[in-house]
């Protein structure tokens, strides 16, 4: 408990930062699950592809040291766009190759999940074979400096603030898209009732594609922010992160966009508080225990979403 009290503000800030990244990835799970009732197991690899896209962009731009001012903004935006494009494209491709044939046949959910696992392994190994199995450093794009302090250990650093703010902004943009545009309406209609949506003239294939594209793009943003913060990548980087993001989605209420944000931030906080009490080597175990407990006691998540169909 001593650790928890002394590190409270530090854990809070780290938890919110990590939680924002979880939340962005969780959006992909939540969107796809909402529409297809499918756990897109390969979503973690969509994120991984984003980190590599960001890395290649930095290498292409010849970035090796911290940038400032306009150059920094430009680098961040270009990196984020590249990661979004790569992740979004990969997600659409994934849907096209690994899920659509199964969907057309009306295959069982088990078959779809196994296909997803296969795709996940394939993408991971593709990068392992191509770029090796070791950690790959990411160049430092921004000088990390303390902005202000909350409490004794709560140093707010500029990169952490950037991650949290960018995640929340992207979340708002996405929610606005889904709630106000015609395509977004199609997504919501399909999520509520696919048969009726089709009868009302919604193009299911297009909706599914857009869903994967949006989820992938969010994972791409998350990948760029992750790289700015952690500055490292690897072919398996998405695995644990993906599972935690899925936990976040379930925690907030899967199929619910705001739930993803809430779940992500909550999970980030729980994990960091837990780590300050029991030690950081138990972080992953804490996340998994949270997942099991949520699924056992409140499978509809914090904000709740009708999961009757999802569980049937």
């Amino acid at each position, binding site marked *: 408990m001593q650790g928890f009290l002394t590190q409270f503000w530090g854990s809070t800030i780290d938890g919110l930062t990590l939680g924002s990244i979880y939340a962005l990835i969780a959006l992909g799970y939540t969107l796809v699950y909402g529409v297809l009732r499918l756990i897109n197991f390969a979503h973690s690899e969509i994120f991984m592809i984003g980190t590599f896209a960001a890395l290649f962009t930095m290498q292409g731009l010849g970035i090796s040291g911290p940038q400032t001012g306009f150059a920094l903004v430009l680098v961040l935006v270009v990196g984020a766009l590249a990661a979004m494009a790569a992740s979004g494209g990969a997600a659409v491709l994934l849907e096209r*190759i690994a899920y659509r044939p199964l969907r057309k046949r009306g295959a069982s959910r088990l078959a779809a999940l196994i296909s997803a696992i*296969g795709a996940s392994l394939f993408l991971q190994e593709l990068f392992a074979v191509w770029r090796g199995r070791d950690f790959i450093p990411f160049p430092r794009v921004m000088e990390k400096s303390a902005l202000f302090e909350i409490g004794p250990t709560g140093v707010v650093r500029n990169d952490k603030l950037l991650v949290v703010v960018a995640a929340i902004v992207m979340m708002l943009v996405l929610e606005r898209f889904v709630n106000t545009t*015609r395509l977004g309406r199609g997504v919501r209609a399909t999520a509520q009732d696919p048969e009726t949506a089709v009868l009302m003239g919604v193009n299911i294939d297009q909706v599914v594609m857009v869903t994967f594209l949006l989820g992938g793009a969010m994972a791409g943003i998350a990948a760029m922010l992750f790289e700015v913060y952690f500055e490292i990548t690897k072919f398996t980087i998405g695995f644990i992160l993906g599972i935690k993001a899925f936990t976040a989605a379930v925690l907030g209420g899967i199929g619910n966009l705001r739930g993803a944000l809430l779940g992500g931030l909550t999970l980030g906080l729980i994990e960091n508080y837990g780590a300050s009490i029991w030690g950081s080597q138990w972080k992953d175990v804490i996340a998994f225990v949270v997942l099991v407990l949520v699924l056992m006691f409140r*499978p509809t998540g914090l904000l709740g979403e009708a999961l009757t169909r999802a569980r049937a």
Partner: protein
Amino acid sequence: MSAEDARARARAGLAGVNTGLGDLWARLPGWGRLVVYLVLIVLVLLLPVDAFGAVMAPRSDWASILFYPIGVYILLAIGLNVVVGQAGLLDLGYVAFFAIGGYGMAVLGTKFGWTFWEIFPTAIVLSALAGLILGAPTLRLRGDYLAIVTLGFGEIIRITANNTAYVGGPRGISDIPHPPSLTAQQVMLVGSLAVLVILVLVALATVPSLIDRQRVGEAVAARSRTRLMILAVGILLAIAAIVVALASPATARALVPSMKFGIIDPRPYYYLVVLFCVLVIVVVKRLERSRVGRAWVAIREDEDAAELMGVPTFRFKLWSFVIGASIGGAAGTVFASKVIAIVPDNFPFILSVLILAAVVLGGSGNLPGVILGAFLVAWLPERFRGFENYRVLVFGAALVVMMIFRPEGLLPSRRRRAEFAEGSGGLGALGAEVQDAAEATPTTVEAGR
């Protein structure tokens, strides 16, 4: 639509590969099956011979490979098949039970000084308990939720082992005792006893069809009579072997070799794992044909319908979990008794996936298929050494391709194939029917094109 047509054609072509095989087996008369079984037994006994190794795995120690990965993978796949193939529950953390068995062997062997034959049943009970503890709260969940929770459980076990000093943390536990060596007399005793148990189990299963002749029909009853006679001969031979072994150790020494479970010779371990595989196959096969097995099929095909028909689905799901867990634990114990040292990294998530791949590729729900799948998953990387970097890549792609073209696996059971062809399941709402409806309604949202 030509792509769809091509896919449909490819599916039909692939499906034709083995439709004949199952029928052939069904038509085979009793003596034909006996011959097949005898050939299989001889083959399995002779498998560790170097001549096979030169062909099957020229660049590795064939007898070692036969034990691990091949034998252990097969045992694990048979266990996972109970959960995934028979009850239809997707378990992504099966390696956890393998780890519990392994760590059970390691801890009881090194810290308490127990021997293998004492630990083996204990570890099985331990992993069964773990299955119960994991299953009781989580089996109320369905489908993909269960998959994620089991995945989480597998990782919890591995990370906990990694973080616990008592079991050596990341360095694991070393100096795990081997099973005590067996003299020729003991080998003969154990072997004949095992054969006796197996034959009696099979014989007991054959008896009902003799009693209930009217229901099964004369042809089946006649076949059962032949089978019982063959089994009776086998049982008598086994008893005779036990008597000989007890009466005259010298004869036993002349007939069978002694088994030294050491570091150098992997063959005793291979025979050990074969013994357990056969025992497990017989038990699982009996379960499959029992009330429990029928309940599993009902749950797999439609859980709600099963519940409505009065099948206590939760209890039977728990059973499948516990049985699968004990088999995984048994595999872990045998594995740990050979390798001397185990570390948490012996039990990675990818192993769960490989075993799942074995079950799915081979044909989940069908034991010969599952065994074939496990054999391929374990053997191919050893045969094609130098390509092991691409192993998981190929498995990943193979899983996707299988799910698209032949979701029922290489050697599916007939029932399973029918289930897949029917295509009942969660994606159904967005599947075929919806596709037709979408074609019928030409109005589409054009934005975003």
